[in-house]
């Protein structure tokens, strides 16, 4: 066995494994670069170099142990965090999803208007002189016929063409119509093609039989990086925030925009823009209330149970094994089950209480329901840890106090509880941090509701920061990844400082216990 780790076999095994993984990574790398995903490409290059460097040289032995874990951490935890930080300084939102060059193409494509009378032509798609894409167009009212390619128009006399019973030209010299099979293949190309009409107007296809007359409304001035409205002469310039805006009327912007750095605008919006700030404050307050009351209720009930079952009474084992069940159940399932139980019409809760409360339509009841469900999910944990902690308190302390004449109530409030709190405070803090981000509960139970989305306010009464952020990022109205990332960063700072405080407390504890 030892020989295996030193022998040639081991080396061969290592070489094959390294070569295999490197080959796979290089393949990925090539296709990443091929698709212009440079950031991911560079990451993969570094991974491959690092991999071979780590395992083929003796540069660092610990690194050999860390490398695989390190790569996963970098790729799927650190990179997303860094990316979140970056996104939080961008206007990454609906209307600003694409890059700038793409946005320019899009604006040009969208900035067309039909001519005043809305002229249309009957057309046949085909080739001119055998090679050039072209249309044979007929204006059956004016009896005007012509062939149009991308860059020219060839007017035809009625004598040059054959028409059908609707006076639509079907054949012309030098023009060959496309067969149906060819049409299907050219679908995408044709739908974006512009056929020449005059220097101002062009014909765009609306299906394979009809073309309409359009003209470009905006002209891109590449040397000035600006758009000009051909009719009014208005100039639209890059406003530095991911849009071309009218120089005279800054609020008038061209759609779509592109991703552009807005630096701290997303952060300042959190504090300055009342439309963002007000729901955020509301949600924040509820988040704290929710997390605190969840921890306190779960702890209170758990502790009460632990105290009650702290003596070897009859049936203690049965109690214990049933009490732990809510904690052992997959929480996704239990939350969904509770969701059904709170149903207004058919739910078991209303039936049990003999009421017909619309739990998730009322702010107060929805909040109560959320906390009750979280109590159910959380009390077994505190029961278990409190039981453990109670046993860790030396019984001499209580006995001594009893001899000194302290009543059981005094013993509890003066000795047991303070000691328990000291032992459990890091867990209470950790539990607070966990509930602060208890996304599953809110999302699966109430979906953040009840909410009134009439005026575009997407924050519901039971939304906590994390579920609110999720809605901002992936909601059905508008999606604002930039703002969502900024809120994420703020939440992280909050939760990390709370957790660090908890850890420091537990360090202090280690020296005590």
């Amino acid at each position: 066995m030892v020989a295996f780790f030193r022998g040639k076999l081991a080396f061969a095994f290592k070489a094959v494994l390294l070569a295999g993984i490197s080959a796979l990574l290089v393949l990925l790398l090539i296709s990443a670069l091929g698709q212009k995903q440079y950031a991911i490409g560079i990451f993969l290059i570094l991974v491959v170099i690092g991999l071979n460097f780590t395992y083929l040289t003796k540069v660092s032995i610990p690194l050999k142990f860390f490398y695989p874990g390190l790569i996963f951490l970098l790729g799927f935890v650190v990179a997303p965090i860094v990316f979140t930080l970056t996104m939080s300084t961008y206007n990454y939102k609906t209307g600003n999803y694409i890059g700038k060059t793409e946005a320019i193409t899009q604006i040009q494509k969208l900035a067309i208007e039909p001519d005043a009378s809305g002229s249309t032509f009957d057309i046949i798609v085909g080739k001119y002189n055998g090679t050039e894409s072209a249309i044979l167009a007929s204006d059956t009212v004016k009896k005007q016929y012509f062939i149009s390619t991308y860059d020219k128009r060839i007017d035809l006399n009625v004598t040059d063409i054959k028409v059908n019973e609707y006076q639509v030209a079907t054949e012309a010299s030098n023009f060959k119509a496309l067969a149906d099979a060819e049409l299907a293949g050219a679908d995408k190309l044709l739908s974006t093609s512009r056929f020449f009409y005059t220097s101002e107007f062009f014909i765009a296809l609306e299906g394979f039989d009809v073309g309409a007359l359009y003209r470009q409304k905006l002209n891109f001035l590449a040397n000035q990086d600006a758009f000009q409205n051909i009719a009014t002469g208005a100039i639209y310039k890059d406003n530095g925030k991911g849009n071309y805006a009218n120089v005279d009327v800054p609020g008038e912007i061209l759609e779509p925009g592109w991703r552009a750095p807005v630096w701290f605008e997303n952060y300042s919006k959190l504090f300055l823009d009342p439309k963002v700030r007000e729901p955020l404050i509301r949600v924040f307050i509820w988040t704290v209330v929710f997390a605190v009351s969840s921890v306190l209720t779960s702890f209170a009930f758990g502790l009460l149970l632990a105290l009650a079952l702290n003596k070897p009474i009859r049936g203690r084992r049965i109690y214990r094994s049933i009490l732990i069940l809510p904690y052992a159940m997959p929480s996704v399932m239990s939350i969904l089950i509770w969701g059904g139980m709170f149903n207004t019409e058919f739910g078991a809760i209303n039936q049990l209480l003999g009421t017909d409360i619309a739990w998730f339509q009322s702010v107060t009841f929805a909040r109560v329901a959320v906390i009750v469900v979280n109590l159910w999910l959380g009390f077994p944990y505190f029961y278990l840890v409190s039981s453990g902690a109670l046993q860790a308190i030396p019984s001499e302390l209580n006995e001594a106090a009893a001899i000194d004449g302290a009543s059981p109530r005094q013993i509890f409030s003066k000795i047991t509880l303070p000691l328990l709190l000291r032992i459990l405070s890091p867990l209470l803090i950790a539990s607070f941090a966990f509930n602060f981000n208890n996304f599953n509960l809110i999302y699966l139970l109430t979906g953040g509701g009840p909410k009134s989305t009439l005026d575009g306010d997407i924050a519901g009464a039971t939304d906590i920061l994390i579920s609110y952020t999720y809605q901002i990022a992936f909601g059905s109205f508008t999606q604002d990844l930039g703002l969502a990332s900024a809120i994420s960063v703020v939440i992280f700072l909050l939760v990390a400082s709370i957790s660090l405080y908890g850890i420091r407390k537990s360090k202090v504890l280690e020296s005590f216990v």
Partner: protein
Amino acid sequence: MMKWLRENLWRHVVGIFMVLFAIFPLYLVVISSINPSGSLQVTSFIPREFSWKNYQMLFNDPTIPYLTWMKNSLVISVSVALLSVVISASSAFAFSRLKFKGKKSGIQLLLLIQMFPAILALSAVYVIMERVAVFAPHFGLGTQPGLLLVYLGGAMGVNIWLLKGFVDSIPAELDEAAKIDGASAMQTYWLIFVPLAAPVLAVVSLLSFIGTFNEFILARLFLVDMGSRTIAVGLQGFIGGQYSQNWGPFAAGSLIASVPIVIIFLSLQKYIISGLTAGSVKG
């Protein structure tokens, strides 16, 4: 007798009350799952009829790919459980047993990174995997391997942290002895550490299994196709707010899915509690 009442009555009152609270939803699921009407409405809290109809529906109704969901969940969770432990064990070993520069700051950095709740980086993960899908469609958004990679990354921090805690409690004498006998770090790792830590590795991989099985939001965001969903996403979409309609089969489905998790959990109770007291809370 009076003394017994005074001493113990309140204990049983508290115990019974909490047991009822704890068991009520579970009892309800059980009776719903055998209720042939399959509706959310409980006509009576004591079942009068009994049928396997809801269970049969899960396995026979082609519109509910329950077995596929279950298989997906198991494949993903088992892969995460095994791979994440294989990958993170060596890092935990290095943190626990090797001496090197920057060890302390490395541990602190790991702790800090681990505190960034995965869900906060959700939009970033989404955009990154969207881009991966452009050049490697098999590993990007919407695929199980893509989800697996993200899960593995997410499991790293917690697992290294948990494993390090457990490993620190294994006495170091053995590997020191091996070192004196001239074993390299690699040899110590494979020949001494891995066999010694095997039970611990098993526990942590079971914990990852439970965590992954229970994960909802990433799976929901990643797996759009009905046939690629996990059990959590599948069942959620299945009732999808329409509690009244599919309640019976849903109850049966969530019972079947929960049983293995509950069994694993109960058998690992001791370790889970100690792992939790080490600073993390179950999701």
